[in-house]
C-alpha cells in the first residue's frame, strides 16, 4: 500500500514535470524532478519484484533477472546437478600394477537453451556444456577415447603433462567427423585443470561450448608431510566426504555472433543459481573448483559475499597461493580452488558473482543457501 501511494505521488510529480519540460519552461524545473524520478524507479522496482516473487533470493535481484526458467530435461543437463557430477570413468589395473582410468567422450552438435527462451547452436562433449568433469588421481594412467559424431573436426586438448602426440591440436589427435582417437597420458600434475577443443579457428571451437573441467586429486602417498590435506582433496576418502565440493566453469555465449557475449554464466545457464540457490550445510567446509573459459573478454572473476576464502591457483599446491581474499581474477583457461566455510555465519542467502558488474547482470550470479546441517 505504501509503495502504491509512493508510486502514485511520484508519478504525478513526474507528469507535471514532463508537461513543464515540454512547454520549455526551463531546465531547472527538469533538474528538480531528478530525485522524484529516482524514487519512482526504486519504488516501482521493489513493488513489482515483491509481488512477482516472494522468495528472499529473488528479491535480492529484483527485476534484474532473466525471465522464466530453462527446460533442463530438453537440454539434457541440469546446472544444479553438474556442480557435483564427477565423471570418474572406468578403473582397471595395468600389467605393471598401475591404475588405468578410461573415459569415453563423444563430440555432438546440439542446440541448447542458455538463458530461458534463447537457444544456442552448441558444439558439445557428451551432449552437455560444459563437458563432463573428468576426475582422476595423481599418477594414474589415463585413456580418453574420443569419438567425433559432429559436423566439424574436433580435438580434446588437456591442460596437463603429456607428449606432443597427445596434445590434441591439429596434426596431433585431431578427429574428423566419424573418426576416433585415444589420448593416453599420466594424470599429472594434481590440481584443478581443464580440457577444450583446439581445432581451428580456436575462438569459435571454444565459445561454441567445447570445454570441461579436468580435476586431478593429489595422491596422499606422494605428499607425506601434507597427507591429511591431500586426503581431504581425494574423492571418496572420509576426509573428503566432510567437504562440500562444487565445480564451477565460468562460461559465456555470443548468441548473435558479433564477438560480444550476450549471456554470462557458471555452468552455462545464465542466472541459474540465482533462481536455484546452491544448498550449503553451515558446519561443513566448501571447496569450489573454479575454471574460467569465457571467450572475447580478457578476464573473469569470482566474488563471494560476506565471507573470505583461501585460493589455490591452478590447484597445484596444497598450501594456498592467496590467503583470505573475497575476490579472485582469472584469465581464460586460468583456474583454481577456493576453500571457505560458513561455520560462524548465520544461515541465509549469500550471493556470489563475477565482480565485472556487466557479467553479473548478464547472468553470472548466484546464491549460496546456507542451512543448518540436516544430519
Amino acid at each position, binding site marked *: 500500500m505504501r509503495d502504491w501511494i509512493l508510486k502514485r505521488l511520484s508519478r504525478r510529480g*513526474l507528469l507535471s514535470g514532463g508537461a513543464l519540460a515540454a512547454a520549455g519552461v526551463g531546465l531547472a524545473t527538469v533538474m528538480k524532478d531528478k530525485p522524484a524520478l529516482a524514487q519512482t524507479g526504486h519504488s516501482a522496482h521493489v513493488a513489482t519484484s515483491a509481488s512477482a516473487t516472494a522468495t528472499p533470493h529473488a528479491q535480492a535481484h529484483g527485476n534484474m533477472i532473466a525471465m522464466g526458467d530453462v527446460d533442463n530435461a530438453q537440454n539434457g543437463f541440469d546446472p544444479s546437478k553438474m556442480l557435483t557430477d564427477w565423471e570418474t570413468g572406468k578403473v582397471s589395473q595395468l600389467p605393471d600394477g598401475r591404475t588405468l582410468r578410461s573415459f569415453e567422450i563423444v563430440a555432438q552438435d546440439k542446440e541448447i537453451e542458455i538463458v530461458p527462451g534463447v537457444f544456442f547452436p552448441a558444439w558439445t562433449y557428451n551432449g552437455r556444456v560444459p563437458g563432463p568433469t573428468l576426475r582422476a588421481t595423481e599418477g594414474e594412467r589415463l585413456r580418453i577415447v574420443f569419438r567425433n559424431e559432429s559436423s566439424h573436426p574436433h580435438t580434446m586438448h588437456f591442460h596437463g603433462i603429456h607428449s606432443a602426440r597427445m596434445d590434441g591440436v591439429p596434426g596431433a589427435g585431431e578427429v574428423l567427423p566419424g573418426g576416433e582417437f585415444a589420448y593416453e597420458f599420466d594424470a599429472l600434475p594434481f590440481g584443478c585443470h581443464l580440457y577444450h577443443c583446439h581445432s581451428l579457428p580456436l575462438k569459435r571451437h571454444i565459445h561454441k561450448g567445447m570445454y570441461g573441467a579436468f580435476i586431478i586429486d593429489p595422491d596422499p602417498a606422494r605428499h607425506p608431510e601434507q597427507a591429511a590435506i591431500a586426503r581431504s582433496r581425494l574423492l571418496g576418502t572420509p576426509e573428503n566426504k566432510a567437504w562440500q565440493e562444487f565445480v564451477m566453469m565460468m562460461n559465456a555465449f555470443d548468441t548473435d555472433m558479433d564477438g560480444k557475449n550476450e549471456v554470462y554464466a557458471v555452468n552455462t545457464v545464465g542466472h541459474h543459481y540465482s533462481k536455484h540457490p546452491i544448498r550449503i550445510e553451515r558446519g561443513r567446509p566448501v571447496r569450489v573448483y573454479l575454471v574460467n573459459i569465457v571467450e572475447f573478454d580478457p578476464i573473469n572473476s569470482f566474488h563471494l559475499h560476506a565471507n573470505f576464502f583461501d585460493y589455490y591457483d591452478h590447484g597445484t599446491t596444497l598450501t594456498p597461493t592467496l590467503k583470505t581474499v573475497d575476490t579472485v581474477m582469472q584469465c581464460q583457461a586460468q583456474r583454481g580452488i577456493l576453500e571457505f566455510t560458513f561455520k560462524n555465519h548465520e544461515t541465509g542467502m549469500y550471493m556470489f558473482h563475477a565482480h565485472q558488474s556487466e557479467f553479473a547482470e548478464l547472468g553470472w550470479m548466484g546464491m549460496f543457501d546456507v542451512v543448518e546441517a540436516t544430519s
Partner: protein
Amino acid sequence: MNESIRPPIDARTPPAAQRQTSRAADLAWFAVPVLVLILASAWLITSDWLSAFDTGAPPVEKLTFERTVLNGDGIHVQVRAGGSAPITIAQVQVDDAYWSFKQEPPGPLDRLSSAWLHIPYPWVLGEKHDVKVLTRTGVAFVKTIEVAVPTPQAQFSNLGPQALLGAFVGIVPVVIGMLFYPALRHVGRSGMNFVLALTVGLLVFLFIDTMKEALEFAKRAAESFQGTTMVLLVAVATFLLLFAVGRRHGTPTGLALATYIALGIGLHNFGEGLAIGAAFTAGIAGLGTFLVLGFTLHNVTEGIGIVAPLVDSRPPLPTFVGLALLAGAPAILGIWLGSLSYAPHWAALALAIGAGAILQVIVEVGAYLMRRAGGSQGAWLSPSVLAGLTLGIGVMYVTAMLVKV
C-alpha cells in the same frame, strides 16, 4: 474489302436475352484467373515442394522499434515483427543487464504484428539507455534512447503551452508575411513577378525539406511498409489528386491559388511541428528561444507567398485570417502529436502528403507566373524572376541554418 468477308452486322446482333447471358459469360471470364490463382496457392501450400530450398539456415528475423514511452513505471517499447517466420521474444536487456518484462499481447509475433514490452527499469533522467531484445535464436535488436526524459502524456494541461508554441512558429510568421500585402499591391508588374518567383523559390525549398524529412521517417519504419516507395507514391498521388481537383474549373488563380499555397505550406508546417515537438521531448529544448525564433524567421517568407496571388483582388479580412490559420495552425497539431510517441510510418505518410501538396502549388504558381509574364518562355529568364527564385531559396536555406540542431 473487309466488309465483304464479314457477315452483315445485323445478323450478329443477339436478342436481349442472349445479350444478358453473354454478359454473364463475360463476367465469368474474370473468375477464371482468380480461380487459377486460388488453385496455384492451394497447391503451393499443400504440396510443400518449396522445402527443397530449405538450407537449414535459421529464419530471417526483423524487429522494428516503433514507439518508446518512459514513465514512472519504467520503459515501454512497441515493437513490430518482420522477416520470414514468427518471432519469439525470449529476453530483454537494458544497458547490458537482463531485466524482467511483460509482453502485451504475449506469444510469438507474427509478421507485421506488434506488441508492447513493459520493462520496470529505473531509468535515469537525462542519460542514455540501450534496450536490447533477444529472440529465441539469440539475435539481438537494440533501441538506443539517446536522452531519457519522461514521455509527455496527452493531457489537457500540456495543450495550452504547446498551442502557444505552435502559434508562434506557425501562425505568427505567416501573419507577419501577410502584412506585406498592402506593399505588394504597389510593386508593379516586374515587382510582382519577383514576389511570385520568390514564392516558387521558397516552395522548392519546402518541397525538398519535406521530402527529406518524409524519407528519414520512412527509413525508421518497419521494412514491410516499404517506406521509401510509400513516400514517393503518396507524394505523386497527392500531387495528381490536388492538381486534378484544382483544375476542375480551369487553372487556379487568385483566392483559389492562395488557398492551395496555404494548404501545402500548412502540411509542411505540420511536419515542422512534429520535429519541434519531438525535439522538446528529446530534451533539445535547451536551445528553446533560439530555435523558436529561427522557425519564426524561417516562416515569414511563407506569408508573402500566400498573399502574392491576391494582389489583383481585394479579399475581405476574414479570408486572410482563414488563410493564416490554414497555413499556420497545423504546426500546433504537429507539436501536440510530435511530443507524444508516434510510429514513424504515420509521420512519413503525413509528410509525403505535404510534399505532394507543395509540388502542386509549385506547378500552379509557376503557371500563374508564366501567364502574368505573357506566356513567353523568356519570362523565366527575366532578371526579376531569376532574382526572386534565387532569393526565395537562399533566404529559406539561410534561415533553416537557425533551426537545424
